């Protein structure tokens, strides 16, 4: 056969450089959790990719850069595993084995125990909680393993040009990155989205989330607690090393008061809300408040552009689905890109992008609406509504098939699943 003896046969293609300018199949704006996961998924499957981030890795991996935590649902773990990232973070991730959802201090609560459901033939955690900082470090470790991924950080994108035949991103230092597709993973104030003139719908809640991480003397046993309080949900999420992550949604007008409390009084409030099962509590991080608002892009695609993560959607964190939604974007977009790339088709072509948008937008709008409904259902004290939700919770507990469906939903394994979520290679 006409093997032409090309020595580069079957080595993964890499982005190419030409006098400082770069060329790849895909260029990603934003190297946050969604953006770098996207880059790792593509490079793992042999698609040359450049990821541009304005912050340097050193700064991002620093303890004080981001004190937030991330909930990784079972489905998201599968995506990270497929992208080769999970192995770098599994030791830092606290498994969620048991979810208890209660309406204020009502005796009725929904209890999801991971041993009630078998997935892939075994009992698996619903998800894992870890520090954003540890996930960033895992992503950087993966980047170092992938020659087909060029991580430009710190670097600033100043202009994006897209047309029928290709796209390019101009950097502040004058260099240009050329590609077939631009992925906007550059957050709520996405330059990629705004540059394409894609409008967003926004609405905000009269709530902010007070967040911090605590140390506790008693083991958390992998129990996650979510109490629906009149002013917003209060969540305690199990982490490693006898720590829990606190997500305390509160009326905006009261937030500053709680932030300003002396540590001992703040801990007193936490203990009262969490129910005392954790023993002695101390603060492991500072306290921060994040306003809760929702954003949904009208379209997730434009010519040679796809939006993922918070550039496309930011939802209420009530169900802990923010990054999980972003990682579902990653799984779906990586699949349509890799399918096209393997056939030598244009990865930024309209058919490829339309497939991504059909797949993702319905799911996203639905979840945003459900979370919005939950917030309004639970954040009030009107007696008939309270009775209805208590009855609803009691019913869920008594109907095993309904309960198993909700449990699978919490794990993210419901619907038309991308290959990565099903645990198959891309």
């Amino acid at each position, binding site marked *: 056969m*006409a093997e032409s003896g*090309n020595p580069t*046969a079957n080595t993964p293609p890499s982005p190419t450089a030409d006098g400082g300018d770069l060329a790849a199949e895909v260029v990603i704006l934003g190297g946050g959790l969604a953006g770098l996961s996207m880059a790792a998924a593509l490079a793992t499957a042999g698609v040359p990719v450049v990821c541009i981030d304005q912050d340097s890795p050193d700064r991002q991996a620093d303890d004080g850069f981001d004190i937030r935590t991330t909930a990784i649902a079972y489905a998201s773990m599968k995506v990270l595993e497929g992208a080769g990232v999970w192995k770098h973070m599994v030791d830092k991730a606290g498994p969620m084995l048991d979810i208890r959802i209660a309406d204020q201090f009502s005796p009725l609560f929904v209890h999801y125990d991971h041993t009630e459901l078998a997935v892939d033939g075994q009992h698996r955690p619903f998800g894992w909680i870890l520090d954003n900082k540890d996930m960033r470090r895992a992503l950087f470790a993966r980047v170092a393993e992938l020659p087909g991924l060029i991580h430009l950080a710190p670097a600033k994108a100043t202009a994006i040009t897209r047309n029928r035949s290709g796209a390019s991103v101009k950097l502040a230092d004058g260099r240009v990155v050329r590609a077939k597709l631009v992925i906007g993973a550059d957050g709520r104030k996405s330059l990629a989205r705004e540059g394409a003139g894609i409008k967003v719908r926004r609405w905000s809640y009269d709530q902010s989330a007070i967040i911090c991480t605590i140390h506790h003397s008693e083991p958390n046993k992998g129990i996650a607690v979510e109490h629906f309080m009149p002013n917003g949900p209060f969540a305690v999420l199990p982490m490693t090393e006898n720590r829990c992550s606190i997500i305390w949604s509160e009326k905006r007008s009261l937030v500053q008061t709680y932030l300003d409390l002396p540590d001992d009084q703040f801990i007193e409030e936490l203990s009262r809300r969490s129910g005392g099962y954790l023993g002695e509590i101390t603060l492991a991080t500072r306290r921060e408040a994040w306003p809760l608002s929702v954003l949904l892009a009208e379209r997730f695609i434009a010519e040679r552009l796809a939006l993922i993560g918070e550039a496309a959607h930011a939802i209420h964190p009530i169900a802990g689905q923010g990054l999980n939604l972003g990682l579902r974007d990653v799984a779906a977009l990586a699949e349509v890109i890799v399918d096209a790339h393997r*056939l030598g088709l244009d990865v930024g072509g309209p058919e490829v992008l339309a497939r991504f948008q059909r797949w993702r937008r319905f799911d996203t709008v639905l979840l945003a609406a459900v979370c919005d409904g939950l917030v309004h259902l639970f954040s009030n004290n009107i007696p008939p509504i309270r009775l209805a939700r208590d009855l609803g919770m009691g019913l869920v507990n008594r109907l095993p098939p309904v309960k198993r469906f909700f449990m699978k939903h919490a794990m993210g394994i419901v619907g038309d699943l991308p290959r990565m979520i099903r645990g198959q*290679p891309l």
Partner: protein
Amino acid sequence: MTATAGTTPTTPAPASTPGANKVGASTVDPADVARFSAIAAEWWDPTGKFRPLHRLNPLRLTYIRDAVCQRLGRDPLAPSPLNGLRVVDIGCGGGLLSEPFARMGASVVGVDASEKNIKTAATHAAESGATVDYRATTAESLAASGERFDVVLAMEVIEHVADVNLFVQSCADLLAPGGVLFLATLNRTPKSFAMAIVGAEYVLRWLPRGTHNWRQFLRPSELTAAVRAHGLNMRHLTGVTYNPLTDEFKLNARDLGVNYMGWAERV
């Protein structure tokens, strides 16, 4: 001249290539480039007049890639699965098959009798950065020149040729030892008349009227006999069916009533 950038042959063509008409000679008129660029945009618009071909393309690319990889012992999921293989795309049109095969690693010669198609395809390859050797010639001339290929593609073209026997002979001659010939065409059945002529040309207006002459369609038995007459064996045939509700083409081994394709190799 930018229009020449993507047309450099990856393998040197033999000195005697009758009819080979390389585009990209240094005298290309800029007005020509603009004109062919506009035509290329039509060919490559997935929502435009070649929409059916774009809808069909992933399916037939997958079919051909997987069969070639299976036959020649390659991994279809590798980064450049067809690396180093010589492929000729007969009746390449705007290059909808040639470019993807080039990106899958093959050295591709795109052949079309129409000079306009060749210029269009070459212009697009230059724009997209694909490397394809486009030539305005025929399968017969190319075969006569002595060039040989690992993969010969004759997709949706045999129903347009004047002499089926001569065409199949040329395709057979173009095969290198161990090479594979892919053929796709339309069956001559009442259903294909209803769908390909009445449906596609008159009702849906997918194709200009007169694109196809139903009498020139080949039954699978006729295609099999034609390749056998030139020492080839039809190793696989499958139907390709269109579902108007999902707007998707699918392989269907049991329905060869309208579109079908398959591959043959030397006995």
